[in-house]
Structure formats: structure tokens, C-alpha cells
């Protein structure tokens, strides 16, 4: 087969995947970018008003708003705390799972799977009940009835972050546990024979071998936690007192979609997509530089 023919065959094999990707990724992004360039509200959707092309007007509007930057900063910080928290808790429990007896491990996994499979709205509501100012179990135990966790900006953020970590650590834990289990016993044995300490083994043998998995769970967590909506929306009643617990997704919903400003909403969506792409690319490049082959 000629090189050209080979290329054609390869392309033919790739076509179905490309079509799916095109349909599921490229077209929505295309529509998103398109809408973000127009003044596109309910009047325009239902044909009651003409379309006005704004160019970058929506973006100017957005980037010129002080609240946007505040919310963006909050989102980044909130996501960072959630990612670090999720990874730490997940990794700790994964390591724990490799060291305990079977029934303890089973219990741990069942509990984690329970948290994982709880729908976000239900989970958030249950946490709200637990932390209710007057009737909550937590306040009862701590003896601080009447203390509102969701009023203060920082306790509210802390509570939501704890909930997010609670429902996302199981993914990290299960994945890392599988990764640790997949490390060949000979490698660890060799390290032990060479006289490496437990810490040294973990740092120089286990961790490098787990790297691809850690990479995947980190990127996943960043994307998930950056896009948190349900927990903030439900637990802080749509963004907290005076909107001080807003994150980008809830902000987009409130300012744009609930207000039928789809153009502005699309612009926020584009900004989020670009940001996430940038973070992911930056992360990938940093890893590649440090010698990881992807």
C-alpha cells in the first residue's frame, strides 16, 4: 500500500470517531462561540426582536465587570482547595485500603461508593440538614445550636468544600487503589532488597509508577471542581448572602441564563472553556517538562 493509500485507510478508520467528536464537541462549541457574539435574549430566540451582532461586546461587558473578577478569583481558590482536599483524602484512604484487612477495606469501599453514588442535590440537602442551625445533628453534638454555617462567607465556603470533597474523593481513592495494586510485587521487593525505607520506596518507586494515574485524577478533579454548580446553588441558596459565595457556574446561571441573557452566558461559557483548556495544557506541559512521557 502506498503512503497515500495508508493515510486514506487510517482516515476512514478514524471517521466515525471524528464524527462523534465533531457532533459532541465541535458543534456545541461552535454554537457557544457564535451565540456569545450576539445580543441573544428570549426576545431574540422567540423571534420577537431582531438579532444584533455585538462582536466582542459581551466579552467587554464581562471582563469589565468587577464582580466577574471577584467571582473568578473565588472559583479558582475554591476549586484549588477542593482539588487538593480531594487528592489528599483520596490518596490517604487508598493507601489505608492497601494496608488493612479485607472486611475493613470492604466497609471503607462500600461507604465511599455510597458517597459517590449519592446524587449531588440529595447529598447537598442532606449536608444542609446535618448542619442546620437549629435542628442539625452537628450543632447538637457540638452544642452550638443556633449557629448558622451558611451565613458567614468562609464557613459557608468551607462547608460546601467539605461536601464536594466528600462526594468526589471516592473516585480518587478507587483509581489510586487500583493503581497501587497494579504495581508489580517484584519491583517493591527489589527496592526492599536494596534496603530502601518505606518512605523511600513510596517516593522513588510507587509515586513515579502512579504518576499517569495521578495525572488523570488531578485533571479530572480540576475540571469537576472548577465547574461546581449544584453544591453551591443548593447549599448557599443560589450564591450566599449578597452573592458572596458565587462561583463562576452559578454566576453564569444567575446573571445570564436565568436572566435570559444567553449571549452573555455563552461568553462566560467560552471564557470557562478557554481557562480550563489553558490550565490543562499548562499542567500537561509542566509534566512533560519534568520528564513524563504521556
Amino acid at each position, binding site marked *: 500500500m502506498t503512503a497515500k493509500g495508508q493515510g486514506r485507510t487510517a482516515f476512514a478508520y478514524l471517521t466515525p470517531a471524528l464524527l462523534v467528536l465533531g457532533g459532541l464537541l465541535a458543534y456545541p462549541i461552535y454554537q457557544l462561540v457564535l451565540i456569545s457574539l*450576539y445580543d441573544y435574549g428570549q426576545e431574540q*430566540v422567540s423571534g420577537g426582536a431582531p438579532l444584533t*451582532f455585538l462582536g466582542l461586546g459581551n466579552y467587554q461587558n464581562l471582563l469589565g465587570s468587577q464582580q466577574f473578577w471577584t467571582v473568578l478569583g473565588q472559583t479558582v481558590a475554591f476549586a484549588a482547595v477542593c482539588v487538593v482536599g480531594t487528592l489528599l483524602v483520596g490518596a490517604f484512604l487508598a493507601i489505608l485500603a492497601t494496608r488493612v484487612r479485607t472486611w475493613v477495606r470492604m466497609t471503607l469501599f462500600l461507604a465511599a461508593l455510597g458517597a459517590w453514588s449519592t446524587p449531588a442535590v440529595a447529598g447537598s440537602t442532606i449536608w444542609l440538614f446535618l448542619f442546620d442551625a437549629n435542628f442539625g445533628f452537628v450543632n447538637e453534638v457540638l452544642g452550638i445550636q443556633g449557629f448558622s454555617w451558611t*451565613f458567614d462567607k468562609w464557613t459557608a465556603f468551607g462547608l460546601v468544600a467539605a461536601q464536594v470533597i466528600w462526594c468526589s474523593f471516592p473516585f480518587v481513592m478507587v483509581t489510586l487503589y487500583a493503581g497501587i495494586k497494579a504495581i508489580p510485587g517484584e519491583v517493591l521487593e527489589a527496592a526492599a532488597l536494596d534496603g530502601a525505607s518505606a518512605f523511600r520506596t513510596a517516593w522513588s518507586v510507587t509515586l513515579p509508577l502512579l504518576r499517569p494515574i495521578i495525572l488523570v485524577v488531578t485533571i479530572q478533579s480540576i475540571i469537576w471542581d472548577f465547574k461546581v454548580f449544584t453544591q453551591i446553588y443548593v447549599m448557599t441558596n443560589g450564591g450566599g448572602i*449578597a452573592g458572596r459565595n458565587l462561583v463562576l457556574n452559578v454566576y453564569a446561571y444567575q446573571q445570564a441564563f436565568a436572566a435570559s441573557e444567553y449571549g452573555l452566558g455563552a461568553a462566560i461559557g467560552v471564557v470557562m472553556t478557554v481557562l480550563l483548556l489553558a490550565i490543562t495544557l499548562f499542567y500537561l506541559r509542566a509534566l512533560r517538562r519534568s520528564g513524563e512521557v504521556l
Partner: protein
Amino acid sequence: MRLKTLVAVLGVGAVVACAPVQSGPTNTSTDEKTGQLRVWLFDEVNRGPKEAVVKEAITEFQGKHSGVTVDVQYIQVSSRAERFKAAFSDPKSAPDVAEFGNTDLAGYVSAGGFSELDLSSWSESKDLVPTILDTAKVDGKTYGVPWFVGVRALYYRTDVFTELGLKPPTTLDEIAPLARQIRQRKPELIGISAGGKYLFAALPFIWAQGGDLAKQDGGKFTAAIDSAEAKAGVTKYTELIKDDICPPATCAGNGGDASVEQFRAGKAAMTIGGDFNRKSVDASSAAGKYGVVPLPGKTAGSIAPAFAGGNLLGVLKGTQRKTLSNEFVQLLASKKYQQKMYTAMGNLPTFADVQKQVSDSDKFLEPFTKTLQSGTKFVPVTPAWAKIEAQTVVPTMIQEVVTGAKNVDTATADAAKTMNAAFAS
């Protein structure tokens, strides 16, 4: 990086090539006299009695028009925005007649959803209370018939007031000192349950001072929330959400339901509640030991202008049975059926004479009908208001003042700025 380039290329291509989708408004000229009339009404917690009255009206209507059937769908209030948006975007799935909230009117009309109604040939229409009929108008044109109205007044605990030897407030200025005194003497009670998100409780305070949310000048709205009068009202209202009356940690996040809930739970000595809250309060620990007075105005004996909430019945623009739709609206909103709806659901009628009739027979309604008769007010009738409401501009402003994040001057100035941006777009 390649994806970004692709996105950029697509973006540029899109600008040149085409525009986002729009669905055209179908202004049909057909007016069929038979077939199925589709009606959307709001679902309610206890829908049974409402459904019975509606069924009665349908039977009467179908008896008068042979070959006509009426199909009623009960839609959820919480998802109404999506349902109506979908109906306007796709007239085929839209009903002919619909019940909708009067605050949604301006947005629906500008979206091209509802058609103008001509009530001149309907003899009963002259008895509709003018300020209530105004809530069905956009730019002087009527787009709906007020089906019922909801208005709020001051609920207070008679047992607490008797025990402390107090009398209900007679001016707006008396409310805060009175509430403070109650909390001082009974620290387990909230003086008055006011909420940071309870817009319809805050508005009378602003209106009573002579302020308003916005003023209209030649069809153009400008925010007036930063006027001296409005600021006085905001100051008076936010004074209530303080530790010595209604602690922010409890009250700042409360909307109307949560505010009334404090009163129901017996934790508040006063609250601002609607005629529609009666059933739930009667089923609570406050039952039998509360009274209601109109929310007092600035001077003794006056009543603070209340917000005239309520629902309208309207005819969708895309309907193919305009005459039938009009007739059905006029039947369901008629005096006869409003009276029946009052008996069934406790909905306050919108006709002056029917209002008087029901309040004469039920003393509980007196403070509410008095409030209605002394003049009610409304939010700005412009599609921008729906946007301002969705963006929670006014509640955020109140919460900013309550939490001390901003003072009244800054908070109202910022709110005015956001509102003006919405009015301008």
C-alpha cells in the same frame, strides 16, 4: 493549541456565515370555532378544589359551544419560565389560554407570547379594580384579565402583645422600636421576621417613604432606588434585620416563605404575610393567637402601599382559536367563577364588588381588602424587570446593607447602576 485555533477559525467563519437560530412568531389569521382549546393553569399544593371549579367552568363552556373540548394542563410554578419560553419558541406546543404571574407579564409580552385583549365588550370588566387591572397592562395595552390578587399585611401574635401590654404599630416608624422592645423582653423571639430576600416586604417600606424602584419617563425606565426617599425606605427596612430585632444569621437569607415560616414556628412576634398565607398559619403553632392589621404607612392611620401580586389569564399569540380563547378567559375570570375560586382556594377576587362581598362575610380579609383599596403598587412593567429579578439585584442590595458589606448609599447606588444597565439593554 490546535483546538483553540480551530475554535477561532470556526468563530470567524460563523460570523461571516450565519447567525444563531431564531424561531419566527406565528401570527395566525385563522380563528377556528371548534376543536380543542388547550389551557395551562398553575399546579398548587392542594389542587383539588381549584380543579373542581375549573371543571365546572369547562362543563359550562362546552355546553355553550358544541364541538369544543377544553384540555387543561397543570404546570409547575417553579418551572414555568422554561415552559413558557419553550411555548413561545415553538407555537405548536403552546396552549391557547394560560394562567401566569403578573410580574412575568412584561417579559412574556416582549417575547411576543401573549396577544392584546379587548375587554370593552365584556360588561363585567368595568368593575375590575383599576390598580389591579394595571398589573395586566404593558404600555397601556391589556394582555390579561386579573384572575386573583395577593396582597400582604402585618401578622402579629396577639398573645405576646397582650402579655407585654403592647398595641400593633400605627406608623411605619413604630415597627422597629416595637420589635426591638419585644425581643428585649422576650429574647427567644424575633421582633419581626423580615427577610433579606423578601422583596415584597421591603417594597412597602420604600413606597411608604415616597420612593420607588424606578421611574418611567416617556417609555424609558431609570432606576430610582438611589433617591433620597427610596434610601430612607431601605434604611427603615434593613434596620429590622439586625441582631436586636431579626438576627442576620437567621434572617438575611430568608425569602417570603422562610420569613413566614419563622412566624409559623412561633419564633417571631410579627411578620409580613399575605392573605394566601392564612391556611398555613392556621395549621401552625401560631394558630388562634394571631391577628392581622394593614402594614401602617408613614403617618398614623395611613396604610403603606402594598405590592399587588396575583395571576392573570391571557390568550397566547399563536392561538388558532382566538374568539374561543377570549370567551373562555372571560368565563373563568368572571365574577361567578372568581367567587367560586375564593370559596375553593381563598383567592382574593379582582372585582371591587366581589371583594367587598367576600370581606363582608369574612372579617379576616378586612386588613387585606383595606390595603387593596388604599392603593397598591407594582414593580416596573418592563421585560428588564425579569432580568433584574433573576439577577437578584434588590435582595443583594438589602443583604449588602444588612451584613455591613456596604452602606445604604453605596449599595443603592450600585443597585441603581445594575438596574440602569438592564433597562438600557
